[in-house]
């Protein structure tokens, strides 16, 4: 339970005051009683002494008067103890007083006193007895008595007065204390409120220091402490924020597993890689989040060997990505808990480029070797005597020539490609008519088309704008595309050539065939060198595998675009978008 310090102070002060007053008043009262008793004795002894000097008869006569003057009951006793006079009762009926202690004491010592209950007056009385006559022969005694209640009443009266004064003093003290402490307590309360706010995380503002005492010092200290704390927290926050930014902004996916192999944290890239939001993944095992046997094996291997491992793993179903996963064990903060850090690095692109490069080398060698083998083979046959047979020799020489031409075509294509890529041969752009260019290209390729009995449909609207292109390069592009279309369309098929403006700036030419089509997954790879969808068949058709690659690069050089759409079993459409020729354009 919370008790207010101020209230406790008040209660204790009050209690201490009351106790002090009670003890002192009790002590004083008893002291006062003692002192008064002594005074009584002295007064009464003095009065007794004076009375004793008077003759007995006079005393008897003036007993009432003397009693009144000395404020006491006066008893006159003769030597035998008989009462000669008494101011308070009828003395004839009273017994002998000689055995009373005060009388005995007076007889022996010349003065006697006693404090006792008076059976005559039914009251506590103080007695003083003084002998009459000389020291040798005592003729009687004068006894004075006063009720003790008088003393008590007096002492009580004085005691009450004392208590009253003391209470007044204590009250004044208390009021002063309350007044002084109220400032102290309100300062303390302000400190408490402020620290409460700081604890709740509100660092705004600081304590206003008005006092120049210890409390003020404490307030200054608290202000400084809060400032230092704020600074420290801010620095910590900044550092953490920076780390978080780095963590979140990294391309690599990062995942931290706890000792139980459950995911403790992961960054944004990782979230994207496993396509699960963070909330869903945390607390799960890696198998639950990313069901991949290879990853599980790798993790197991790392756990068992305690070493960092790094391996390539394919993750994902719809869009598989190649990941280089590095797993390293980390000792946790306590030094006991073993955590595991997994870093995923997406190397799909790298792998693809690597694939293209190896494919390219393999393709080039393969493309070169095939005609070379034929040339060497036939030359050897000729050398071994086939020369004699003129008819066969002629056929062989034809084959040799054919293969040599193919080789030369290949080398030429490769050179064209590298020239375009390097930008060695600048384009001579001029305004050309698309229809004219198509007609020319068809003159070149039309022979093959009619051999295969292909139907070529042209759907070119009149009045199309001129396109901006290099005359020779345009021919090369069109011949390549038409050649492809003719090659891959089975006999009796149809090729549709259409041209239409595409927006204001482009003219789109589309060449559609009714060939076997290309699987969708292969379309993005068509522009690669030597890439063939059907490796066995298309080479027989005599291509070098560089046609589309050349077209793609030429279109790019013209500022145009090539787009291929295909449906399996239905055919392929190649769309070429050429920039429209503008009169203001300067011919290079």
């Amino acid at each position: 339970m919370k008790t207010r310090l101020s209230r406790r102070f008040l209660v204790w002060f009050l209690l201490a005051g009351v106790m002090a007053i009670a003890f002192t008043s009790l002590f004083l009262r008893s002291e006062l009683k003692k002192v008064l008793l002594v005074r009584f004795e002295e007064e009464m002894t003095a009065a007794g002494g004076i009375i004793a000097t008077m003759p007995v008869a006079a005393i008897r006569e003036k007993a009432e008067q003397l009693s009144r003057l000395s404020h006491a009951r006066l008893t006159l006793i003769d030597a035998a103890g008989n009462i000669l006079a008494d101011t308070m009762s009828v003395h004839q009926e009273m017994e002998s007083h000689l055995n009373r202690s005060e009388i005995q004491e007076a007889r022996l010592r010349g003065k006697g006193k006693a404090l006792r209950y008076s059976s005559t007056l039914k009251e506590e009385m103080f007695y003083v007895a003084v002998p009459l006559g000389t020291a040798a022969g005592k003729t009687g005694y004068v006894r004075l008595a006063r009720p003790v209640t008088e003393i008590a009443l007096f002492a009580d009266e004085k005691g009450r007065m004392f208590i009253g004064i003391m209470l007044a003093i204590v009250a004044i003290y208390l009021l002063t204390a309350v007044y002084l402490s109220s400032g102290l307590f309100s300062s303390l309360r302000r400190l408490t409120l402020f620290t409460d706010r700081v604890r709740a995380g509100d660092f705004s503002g600081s304590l206003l220091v008005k006092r120049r005492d210890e409390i003020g010092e404490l307030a200054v200290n608290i202000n400084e402490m809060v400032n230092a704390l704020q600074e420290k927290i801010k620095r910590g926050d900044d550092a953490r924020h920076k780390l978080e930014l780095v963590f979140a902004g990294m391309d690599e996916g990062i995942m931290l597993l706890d000792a139980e192999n459950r995911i403790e944290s992961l960054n944004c890239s990782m979230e994207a890689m496993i396509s699960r939001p963070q909330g869903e993944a945390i607390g799960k095992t890696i198998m639950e989040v990313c069901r991949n046997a290879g990853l599980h094996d790798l993790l197991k291997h790392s756990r068992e060997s305690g070493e960092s491992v790094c391996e390539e793993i394919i993750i994902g179903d719809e869009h598989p990505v190649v990941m280089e996963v590095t797993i390293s064990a980390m000792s946790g903060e306590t030094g006991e808990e073993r955590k595991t850090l997994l870093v995923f690095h997406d190397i799909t692109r790298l792998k693809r480029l690597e694939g293209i490069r190896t494919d390219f080398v393999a393709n080039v060698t393969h493309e070169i070797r095939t005609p070379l083998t034929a040339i060497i083979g036939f030359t050897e046959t000729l050398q071994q005597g086939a020369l004699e047979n003129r008819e066969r020799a002629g056929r062989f020489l034809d084959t040799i020539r054919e293969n040599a031409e193919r080789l030369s075509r290949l080398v030429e294509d490769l050179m064209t490609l590298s020239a375009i890529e390097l930008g060695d041969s600048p384009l001579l752009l001029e305004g050309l008519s698309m229809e004219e260019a198509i007609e020319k290209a068809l003159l070149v390729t039309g022979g093959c088309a009619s051999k295969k009995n292909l139907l070529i449909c042209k759907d070119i609207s009149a009045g199309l704008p001129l396109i901006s292109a290099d005359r020779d390069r345009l021919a090369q592009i069109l011949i390549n595309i038409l050649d492809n279309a003719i090659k891959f369309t089975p006999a009796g098929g149809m090729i549709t050539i259409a041209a239409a403006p595409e927006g204001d700036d482009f003219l789109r030419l589309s060449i559609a065939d009714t060939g076997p089509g290309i699987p969708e997954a292969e379309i993005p790879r068509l522009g690669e060198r030597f890439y063939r969808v059907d490796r066995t068949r298309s080479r027989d058709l005599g291509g070098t595998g560089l046609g589309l690659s050349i077209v793609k690069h030429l279109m790019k050089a013209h500022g145009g675009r090539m787009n291929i759409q295909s449906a399996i079993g239905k055919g392929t459409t190649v769309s070429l978008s050429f920039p429209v020729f503008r009169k203001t354009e300067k011919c290079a």
Partner: protein
Amino acid sequence: MEETRHTSREYERELQEIRDGLLYLGAKTEKSLEMAIKALLERDTSTAGEIIKGDEQIDRLDIELEERCIRLLALRQPAARDLRFITTAIKITGHLERIGDMVVNIAEKVIILNDFPQLKPYVDLPRMGEISRAMIRNSLDAMVRQDVELARGVRAEDAVIDNLNEQIFRELVTFMLADPVNIKVSLYIMQISKTLERIADHAEGIADMVVYMVTGKIIRHKPVPGKKHENPSLP
């Protein structure tokens, strides 16, 4: 107190191991089905051989998982949800192992088919393979996420597989009628198609078990709304 907490943690760990083991087995079978389809399309005998070899591991995992489940049942006497999970896990393991065997079956057919020229470009078979693979994947995902809707969705997919199977059957019949030389190859292809259809059935079985695991309701053998009755003339 310390002891019981320790035991319960141990118990939790064992349960998690079974869950992970199940998913691992699932990933393995999924992968081997994927490889089988690839081997079929690319006429790749060596991949097919790998699949046949890899089945040994699937079988071993199956036995290991079942033993774990039984040990947990015997030693820990799980109740309620956990009990349902363990009994379900035993059944799912069985389904996965059967799928593994069937994939081996396909791989064997692929090796034989590679000795013959390709009859026709495969269009429906890879689709069937992809769908049945997705069915396995979705049912396991449903298990992880305790997602009853996803599990029920797997049941609906089965109708598509049945239709494709039927379509392949019809197509192959025409090939066989056109030239008796095609009969042998056609029969092998038909067997592959049928195996894929049965793999899908097992995937559906897994999904049913997931529904049971989550809701406690057995939906097996109940007709799927909108699903046609299976053609009795099919092999």
